[in-house]
């Protein structure tokens, strides 16, 4: 089962490696991991997308909680939540493809944020599925490069992850 685990951790050097090291040492999956400081500069917020049986997910949250630098851990996928991921795709855009790419970006509510004679950079935000669909919808031969941020998630409504 896919899970989205959010954590608050001390914004200290080495904190990230403690988390990633835990996953590799214990053989847990990381599908994506994204981290950045929060409005409180002493804290970072991390979102990890992982998968495993209920037992493994239980161990993952317990082991994360055990790390001294980790302040709080929540499996946000246990309840209603929102996920978003950012993707930048650089595509070849020449001749008739130029118009087609623009159209596809519009359909997926993407934005073209860089234009050159032969290429576009398209910015797209959404769920993992949506980004996957976009990549699937455009001609793969035209993709020059893609970069994805990994999933960010937040619980819906009153569920707040804060210290």
């Amino acid at each position, binding site marked *: 089962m896919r899970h989205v685990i959010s954590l608050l951790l001390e914004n200290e050097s080495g904190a990230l490696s403690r988390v990633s090291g835990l996953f590799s040492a214990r053989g847990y999956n990381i599908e994506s991991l994204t981290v950045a400081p929060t409005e409180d500069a002493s804290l970072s917020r991390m979102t990890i997308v992982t998968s495993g049986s209920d037992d493994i997910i239980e161990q993952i949250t317990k082991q994360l909680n055990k790390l001294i630098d980790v*302040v709080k851990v929540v499996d946000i996928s246990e309840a209603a939540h929102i996920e978003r991921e950012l993707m930048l795709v650089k595509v070849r855009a020449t001749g008739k493809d130029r118009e087609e790419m623009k159209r596809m970006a519009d359909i997926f509510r993407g934005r073209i944020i860089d234009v050159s004679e032969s290429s576009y950079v398209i910015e797209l935000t959404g769920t993992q599925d949506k980004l996957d669909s976009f990549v699937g919808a455009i001609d793969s031969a035209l993709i020059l490069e893609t970069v994805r941020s990994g999933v960010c998630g937040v619980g819906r409504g009153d569920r707040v992850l804060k210290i």
Partner: protein
Amino acid sequence: MYLPLLPEGLVSFLGAAMVLTGAEIVIRCLQEEKVEYVFGYPGGAVLFLYDELSKQDIVRHVLVRHEQAAVHAADGYARSTDKVGVALVTSGPGVTNAVTGIATAYCDSIPMVIISGQVPTAAIGQDAFQEVDTVGITRPCVKHNFLVKDVRDIASTIKKAFFIAKTGRPGPVLVDIPKDVSAHKCEYEYPKTVALRSYNPIVKGHQGQIRKALGLLLEARRPMIYAGGGVVLADASEKLTKLTRMLGFPITNTLMGLGGHPATDRQNLGMLGMHGTIEANMGMHYCDVLLAIGARFDDRVIGNPAHFQSEPRKIIHIDIDPSSISKRVKVDVPIVGNLSDVLDDMIKMLESMSERPAPSQIEPWWKQIEEWRSRESLKYKNSTEVLKPQFVVETLWKVTKGDAFVASDVGQHQMWAAQYYKFDKPRRWINSGGLGTMGFGLPAAMGVQLAHPGSPVAVITGEGSIQMCIQELSTCKQYRLPIKILSLNNRYLGMVRQWQQFFHGNRYSESYMDSLPDFAKLAEAYGHVGLRVEKPGDVEGAIREAFSRKNDLVFLDFQVDPTENVFPMVQGGKGLTDMILSSEDL
């Protein structure tokens, strides 16, 4: 007006904070933490620290001969007391040598603070001489570690390190201090308190869960108590024994838990697991309610988890570490908390109960257990010709009246020590259970002996293990540590040979120890007393003689039967009930 500069001492006298170097601060912090001994080895990156060490005599330094031994000695010191062990090593190879010791302590949850030197901050990342990424290398084998980049953070970091090491599930904490930071100066004040928003170990157990657990226990027809090293670490042995007596249940100790409940007590079924007794393993497997206390259902204890779970039973698990619960085996009633507090609560609740089940409720179960016990799975065939290793351990137990501190290395001798030395008290059995570190015994015993001057301290070892840290005989001479080393010398890496005999068609690949030194002479070369013992009839006399020499380290080189095996044995990956009881079962 002209104001003369005041000397620093006077400034502090006048009430202002003291200005000290990082190195001075480290030593002050150790003094504040009431550290008696620092086990260490100097080197370039810790020269300022060693300089300050020499200027005071409150914190005493013990100079080992290898950094691994420094950490093991600090470890033995911690295991045999309820204090935090402290080791001090230099950067680079100092740290990498220490890693085995740190991992040993981590696997057995031993409270320890390791202070390591680092290259100067400006040189970090430049592949400097004796530079390693200490925080990176040690990260997976410490409870936590710190790199102190600013002298103003030293005091608060050391305070945190001691706090983290000894609270919750204990463990080693490393503090890495670059050389320039130990030379920089700042105002010093030792923090009185420590607060970490991300670290608040639970102490009190959930009362509802405890009540639920008692309910299960009192209804049990085939109860079993399974107690691990957590009991020893939490200093909860007396409470465990009290609860065990109140309940009248059988109890088994893990390798790490030996001494947690008196081994000579009738209710104690002995050690369980890979080399456990029949009654302990069968009791563990066939019980209907299992009370697990400070134990973690590890592979050497329950064998194959699927096989273990094939027998239905209710499991209550008390542990300070939530991640130990339901890790390998699904638990019905988890109780997270400090064992001492939880056991206290259980005892009080039990005392307040008006009705308690009649002992007859579990009488058939005890009958079954006695039947298992009557098979005497630890019985061995003694000989008047060949020296049996079990006999040596039994004799040690007899001579020391079961009251010595016994450190061991890793292998067959470790299992015989665990099986035949009946530990009635906690913190007497000092061994590397989790990591299984050969070379642990002698240096650990140094820490034990320093913590308990005048008490009998024995090392049960083998000719393989002892050679992994034999250089410490020199340290023992320097600090006059009258440790008694009992080497069960069978000329083989015995446990490896045993597995090769059982599971690899008698092909003894690289397990024969050729070209062994004369250990008695070697001990003498280090300035100690060495005795070689070959006959069963000489064992008791030799051990008595060794312990009568109060001021000497005595190395007893027992030439034991090279073919002897450790029984009972549960093969790795097999079920607990699948026991090999003797060579005839193979």
